[in-house]
């Protein structure tokens, strides 16, 4: 290994003019930066700025077309991730790279040269326990990965990299799936690592304030190029965002006050089981009135997904009752719920929200085939739906070659606009929007949020489920943090404070539950 002994501030990794082209696009264009031992060096960029490509190059998954990578003063070439690992690079992926059926410990030692022919789990556990103590991680090493929370899985990935002897730790969106207290813990662990002269390289799209709080230096990418290299000291959230987006960005969203109307949805003591069979939603009660946005804030895996599916009629309620406009719909089919004026925007826009090989017209049909106006005697009136599709495409500015192109040719943002458009064109009484802006870039996010506000003005009730606390806080009339399948409180939107909601999301009841 080239990085056996490093001194503070020494350059450990240098990228010189990295260029990577894909058909029709230059993903990385002459990228140049250097990482020093013991520093936190954030790499910032929007979706599509070339961050993922750069990460894959640094980890040996892609080979650059041009440019060189230098480690510890020597030029290196990665043919595979194994080469990168051997040279001291550790990668913590945003889409966790862990075997969920295996224990945390088994995941950490997988492929480790020291694991030996016959596994010595006791010794490995002791060594990893030492790492945990040193950097303040707490995770049950014997637990199966699928039983762990998102933050713990990330810790397992970090431990895996450290156990492998990583000196340069690349973190992909390290705080995106964490609740505020977990974020705090992670940041203090990261700072402990820099004391040991590790270099930490977080790649970040959102949550700029966190970058400002901990990093020493920042490199900003835009459209595949480095647009700025800054010392974090002296930078502001506004200035960083400007470098990222290339224009001034407004961070504030206006909360619209709509006239409160009749209650639409009432939920009482609703419980549901997860796919694995355990109770994921435990006796939830709330109601939503016309013109209200009811925001459920929670980290993924706390039962909000099950809640959305039970309400949409896709999952059986184990207990409890749901009323829509006063009618008990607890046992109603998904189709009946659509007919009664419910609309559903699923979190999985590719797998559940659309069929990739179908045209846009056919995808719009999925929400209209049961409608008298568009289907007579079992025959679909495609002409009408075609017209409707064209209207949706233009009103929601879906970038596409035409209504007959396949849904899989759309980008994430455009697909989400199409799905939202087809649901909202039905003028639903109640809209369930699960993670409506997840993974979208700034422009599409802004668009989707404005459409939600528009629907609210037209007296629709909206159940908004999101991991993005800022989104929940800025849009919702009621904020309900969810933790382990229970609502930790229902707080009026004007009174919801970031720190309290964040603490409740993480299951800390001392945050002062308001009800």
């Amino acid at each position, binding site marked *: 290994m080239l990085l056996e002994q490093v001194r503070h501030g020494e350059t450990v990794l240098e990228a010189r003019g990295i260029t990577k082209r894909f058909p029709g696009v230059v993903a990385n264009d002459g990228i140049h930066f250097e990482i020093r031992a013991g520093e936190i060096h954030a790499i910032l960029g929007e979706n599509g700025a070339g961050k993922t490509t750069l990460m894959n190059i640094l*980890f040996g998954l892609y080979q650059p077309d041009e440019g060189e990578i230098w480690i510890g003063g020597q030029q290196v070439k990665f043919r*595979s*991730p*194994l080469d990168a*690992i051997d040279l001291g690079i550790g*990668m913590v992926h945003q889409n966790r*790279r*862990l*075997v*969920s*059926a*295996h224990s945390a410990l*088994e*995941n950490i*030692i*997988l*492929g*480790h040269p020291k*694991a*030996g*022919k*016959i*596994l010595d789990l006791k010794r490995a556990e002791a060594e990893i326990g030492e790492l945990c103590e040193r950097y303040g991680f707490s995770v049950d090493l014997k637990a*199966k990965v*699928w039983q762990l929370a998102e933050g713990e899985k990330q810790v397992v990935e970090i431990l*895996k990299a450290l156990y492998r002897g990583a000196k340069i730790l690349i973190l992909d969106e390290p705080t995106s799936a964490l609740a505020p207290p977990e974020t705090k813990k992670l940041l203090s662990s990261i700072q402990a690592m820099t004391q040991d002269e590790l270099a930490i390289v977080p790649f970040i799209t959102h949550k700029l304030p966190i970058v400002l709080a901990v990093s020493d230096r920042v490199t900003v990418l835009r459209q595949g190029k480095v647009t700025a290299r800054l010392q974090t000291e002296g930078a502001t959230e506004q200035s960083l965002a400007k470098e990222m987006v290339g224009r001034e960005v407004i961070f504030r969203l206006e909360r619209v006050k709509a006239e409160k109307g009749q209650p639409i949805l009432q939920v009482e003591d609703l419980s549901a089981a997860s*796919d*694995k*069979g355990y109770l994921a939603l435990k006796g939830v009660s709330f109601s939503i009135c016309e013109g209200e946005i009811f925001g459920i804030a929670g980290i993924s895996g706390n039962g909000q997904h099950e809640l959305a599916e039970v309400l949409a009629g896709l999952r059986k309620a184990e207990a409890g009752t749901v009323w829509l406009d006063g009618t008990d719909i607890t046992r109603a089919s998904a189709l009946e719920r659509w007919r009664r004026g419910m609309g559903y925007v699923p979190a999985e826009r590719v797998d559940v929200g659309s069929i990739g090989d179908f045209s846009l017209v056919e995808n719009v049909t999925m929400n209209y085939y049961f409608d008298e106006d568009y289907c007579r005697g079992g025959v679909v009136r495609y002409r009408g739906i075609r017209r409707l599709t064209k209207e949706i495409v233009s009103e929601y500015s879906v970038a596409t070659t035409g209504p007959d192109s396949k849904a899989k040719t759309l980008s994430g943002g455009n697909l989400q606009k199409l799905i939202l458009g087809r649901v909202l064109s039905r003028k639903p009484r109640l809209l369930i929007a699960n993670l409506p802006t997840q993974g979208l870039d700034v422009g599409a996010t802004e668009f989707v949020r404005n459409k939600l506000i528009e629907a609210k003005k037209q007296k629709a009730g909206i159940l908004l489920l999101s991991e993005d606390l800022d989104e929940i806080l800025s849009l919702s009339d009621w904020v309900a943090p969810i933790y382990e399948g229970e609502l930790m409180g229902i707080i009026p939107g004007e009174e919801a404070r970031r720190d309290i909601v964040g603490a409740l999301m993480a299951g800390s009841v001392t945050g002062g539950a308001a009800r």
Partner: protein
Amino acid sequence: MWEFFARSLEASTIFTLAALGELINQRSGILNVGIEGVMLFGATLGFIAAQLSESYLLGFVVAIAIGGLLGLMHGFFSVTLGADQVVVGMGIWILGFGLTTYIGNPYTGPLGMDRIPTISGLSPFFYLGLVLVLVTWFVLSKTSLGLRIRSVGENPAVAEVSGISVARTRYLCVMVGGMLGGFGGAVYSLFYNPVWNYNFLMGWGFIALALVFFSTWNPWILLGGSLLFGTLWQLSLNPQLVLPGVMSRYLWRTVPFVTTIIVLLIMASKWFRIRWGAAKPEALGVPYLKE
């Protein structure tokens, strides 16, 4: 009664060997539904080799080798080419069925060699089967190789970034799995019932396949399942030995297959998936193709 017991164990051993091979396959994420074909090949070519050379050893060596080759062929289609594993497996079965009928036809009839001696009245292969179950369990759960195999079967992408060659691991497993299948077939044709006849196996391989699912991919449960099915199978052949006068023997013949169907129905139920779902290798049957 002892006779019945001993015969049951002999039958169980064949299930154990074939199913153990399939279990190793499946733990690495490769589904081979064509073990019946692999067993037919092993049984037939082993039978012919033993008869021509008058050497049991050579018979078994040929059976194991052809099993390994068929395993590698399955590997080539499903690992290297990324083909649909069920289709490839069915192909191997049909190939085995057709080709062994053609090759073996002139050898129809008894083997005509002295029987392999038993050890304290039991089949020597039974003891070997026990050892192989123990070894498989140890390798899968206690060694680095086992962790690699299981990881490849659960999530090949993770294994790859951890520096493990998915293709090499899977090839190793399909080869060993095929060897065990061929060996199991030869135990049938050289020991259990040393007479060659057209399509003599009649579904043993498919029951072995069902056994793997029954075992929830655990070698010890697989051993228990083999003993159960071996006994059922033997009972279905000679019900009068144990339960004289109960049900027609034609009905008894259906018992192992009906049991297989019931086991697979239970396995397919939602209750079972929730209770035991985590046991199934997540990447089973899914080709792993790098971008």
